[in-house]
């Protein structure tokens, strides 16, 4: 398994501002992902964070709104830009421990935009 630390764990943000979420893993992993979970919903993949190159975004998510960095194999950040109340969600960092294997999640960052 992997130990994944996310911060902040929770935040209340003003409309129009941006927030960066950090994800730290206790071991080197190839694949890191960012998911969003809106209240009462399932998990939706935002993007795959690629080490040393631009993230791969899913349909409906764009780099300008959700810029992602992955400077090394243990760390990634997701920024939620120009937030609106619709961005109020849980944002989850996850890693794949082995190829096509198990996905483990961080504890999530609960964002409320007011």
């Amino acid at each position: 398994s992997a130990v994944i630390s996310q911060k902040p764990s929770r935040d209340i943000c003003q409309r129009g501002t941006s927030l960066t979420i950090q994800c730290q893993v206790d071991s080197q992993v190839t694949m890191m992902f960012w998911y969003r979970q809106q209240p009462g919903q399932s998990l939706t993949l935002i993007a795959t964070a690629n080490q040393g190159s631009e993230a791969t975004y899913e349909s409906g998510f764009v780099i300008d709104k959700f810029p992602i960095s992955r400077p090394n194999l243990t760390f990634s950040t997701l920024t939620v830009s120009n937030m609106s109340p619709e961005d109020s969600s849980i944002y989850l960092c996850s890693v794949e421990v082995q190829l096509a294997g198990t996905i483990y999640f961080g504890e999530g960052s609960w964002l409320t935009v007011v």
Partner: protein
Amino acid sequence: GQQVMQIPQYQHVQEGEDFTTYCNSSTTLSNIQWYKQRPGGHPVFLIQLVKSGEVKKQKRLTFQFGEAKKNSSLHITATQTTDVGTYFCAGWYGQNFVFGPGTRLSVLP
């Protein structure tokens, strides 16, 4: 596109009753994984099934992977209040790991 369905969406049971959630994929999966998310928590990995027809048990939980590797089930025997939460199945579609909508389980004491 790839699609993962789960039924039921919600299930309310009396403590001690059994519970089953079903997961169906639009395409064949190389493996399927199950997660549990407690209220206010994050998804926690439960198990991975790889082989056609595979059955795995974890105490009161029984997981099954269909012969065609397109469906799966999770059965809980004699539910307890600690089983409360949402159970998600998920699978790999190419490079994407896709989650089902989940089944939310409530257990009445």
